[in-house]
């Protein structure tokens, strides 16, 4: 059945509850292996909830539908969030989520496109936006009105290929291409090792219609996505200021947020803390 075609009026409260559900799934998944890219996943949960349960046009029973909107997760290591969203979207079984990162699981810690619902192999950073440009060009050749959403990160802007792609998107006037730039302020070596600010100014200078918002504010996310629907000859950039570990204070304040590894007992404590903060499970 076709989802979000066209997007209806947004129920912000319901989308916030979806985001909480995605976070709950992620905590369970990370507990399974005792580790994972949980900080990034929790930070991007609101955006994925807004996409899969409001903005993206897709059919979970027909993943190859040519006119589907595409979502490309360029940061493959954010897979924990994608698996949670794909499960809630009915694309992969919810029960499978506990296999995250386990041997022989198709829910890898970094995405492979052999898993249903995955539109590219993420992980080698700087690959996503260019592939999004190519998909948007292909859809234009086919005269499809489908759009392409590419998630990328602040650290990923340090890859030159990101800017090669940014240049070409505005040159080709790909107004159905939306870059979702997750600025959570961390990268592998810790807090941003190379200052990327002003982020929005960079994208504007490259010819993108750009908006900077709090990426953990559901109403702001939904509003920015609605504003990106306009077909005005410009690609759209939404700069998302997100908090890694959002929703789980112990992870929000951790210095180990790029990759999180703690023992099972502590995970149980974290999950209890989360359940307490969001109230009874939905």
């Amino acid at each position, binding site marked *: 059945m076709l989802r979000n075609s066209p997007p209806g009026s947004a129920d912000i409260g319901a989308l916030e509850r979806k985001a909480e559900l995605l976070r709950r799934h992620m905590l369970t998944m990370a507990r399974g292996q005792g580790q994972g890219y949980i900080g990034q996943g929790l930070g991007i949960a609101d955006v994925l909830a807004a996409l899969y349960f409001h903005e993206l046009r897709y059919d979970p029973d027909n993943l190859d539908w*040519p006119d589907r909107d595409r979502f490309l997760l360029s940061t493959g290591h954010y897979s924990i969030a994608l698996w949670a969203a794909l499960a809630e979207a009915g694309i992969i079984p919810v029960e499978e989520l506990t296999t995250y990162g386990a041997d022989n699981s198709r829910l890898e810690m970094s995405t492979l496109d052999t898993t249903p619902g995955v539109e590219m192999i993420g*992980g080698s950073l700087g*690959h996503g936006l*260019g*592939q999004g*440009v190519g998909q948007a060009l*292909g859809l234009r*050749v086919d005269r499809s009105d489908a759009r392409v959403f590419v998630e990328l990160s602040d650290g990923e802007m340090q890859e030159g*290929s990101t800017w090669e792609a940014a240049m*070409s998107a505005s040159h080709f006037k790909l107004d159905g291409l939306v870059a979702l730039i997750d600025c959570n302020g961390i990268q592998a070596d810790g807090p941003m090792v190379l200052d990327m600010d002003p982020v929005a100014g960079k994208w504007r200078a490259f010819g993108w219609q750009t908006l900077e918002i709090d990426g953990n504010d559901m109403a702001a996310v939904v509003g920015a996505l609605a504003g990106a629907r306009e077909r005005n000859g410009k690609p759209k950039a939404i700069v998302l200021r997100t908090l890694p570990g959002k929703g789980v204070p112990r992870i929000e304040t951790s210095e180990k947020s790029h990759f999180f590894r703690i023992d099972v007992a502590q995970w149980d404590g974290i999950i209890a803390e989360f359940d307490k903060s969001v109230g009874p499970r939905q």
Partner: protein
Amino acid sequence: MSGAEAERTLAMGQDEAIGGGRQSVEAPFGRALARLGQSRPDIVGLTADLGKYTDILPFRDAFPDRFFNVGMAEQNLVAVAAGLARTGKVPFATTYGVFATRRAYDFIAIALAHSNLDVKIVAGLPGLTTGYGGTHQAIEDLALMRMIPGLTIIDPCDATEIEAATEAIAAHRGPVYMRLLRGSVPVVFEPGYIFEIGKARRLREGSDVGIISTGFMTERALDAADALGKQGISVGVMHVPTIKPFDAGAVAEFAASVGQIVTAENHVVVGGLAGLVVETLFDAGIAKTVTRIGLPDRYIECGAVPTLQAKYGLTTEAVIATIAGLS
């Protein structure tokens, strides 16, 4: 003409492959692609500011809405091609071999090959076909590309083979790296020549020495075999236009049928055809002498192409001399 004038005449700008008095065809790749585009609306063309220099303009002129020039950005060239392939297109992306392999390696490996996407990289200036020095001479591209799982690699010999290979790789499903001979390209093979991906061809029978060659070195090998035959040396020639998947069976059979083996490639003698032949013979338990004709493992200087090809042994005369000197 004095010696000094002759040296000035042969300058860096002389890039074209040497025709050896043969007929030639202009832009065989671009013409073949433009022909294919008529019946294949899924074919799209891309380049990174080298359309004019990779013979793809006939396609652009015929199908402007299916042609994208991404500017000098080879990583993006490959990424965009990957995205186009994901929407069901069959992109032919052109640049020089040096840029495709050295600048966009991760994108070819991960964005294309890992997902087995249907993208054809067509790479100009293979080996010593330009005098612009180490920055432009793709002398190690076959070795680099060989390491990518699932990538098909083609090194065509002449205009006939380029046209046939363009059709074959368009029909083939999966990523391809094809070396391009551009501009006025000699015709070596007769019109009936059949190119098949993954097949080596025995072009001359001979018993003393067997030349196993790829790319334009097969032209030199054939001419050398004819000349050496007149000197009483029986030389066979096997042409191996597909570097990967390598036709190990045919190569081993050919090697077993000759006294000793000479490999000839427009590429460094490590990691490319010579390496493949030696690995194949070892695996097949064939212990025979292998002499490698090709480029040394070093950067080549600037100069006129004929000068450089002569200096580094990629001429018919050099092949003849090498084989005549074998004990």
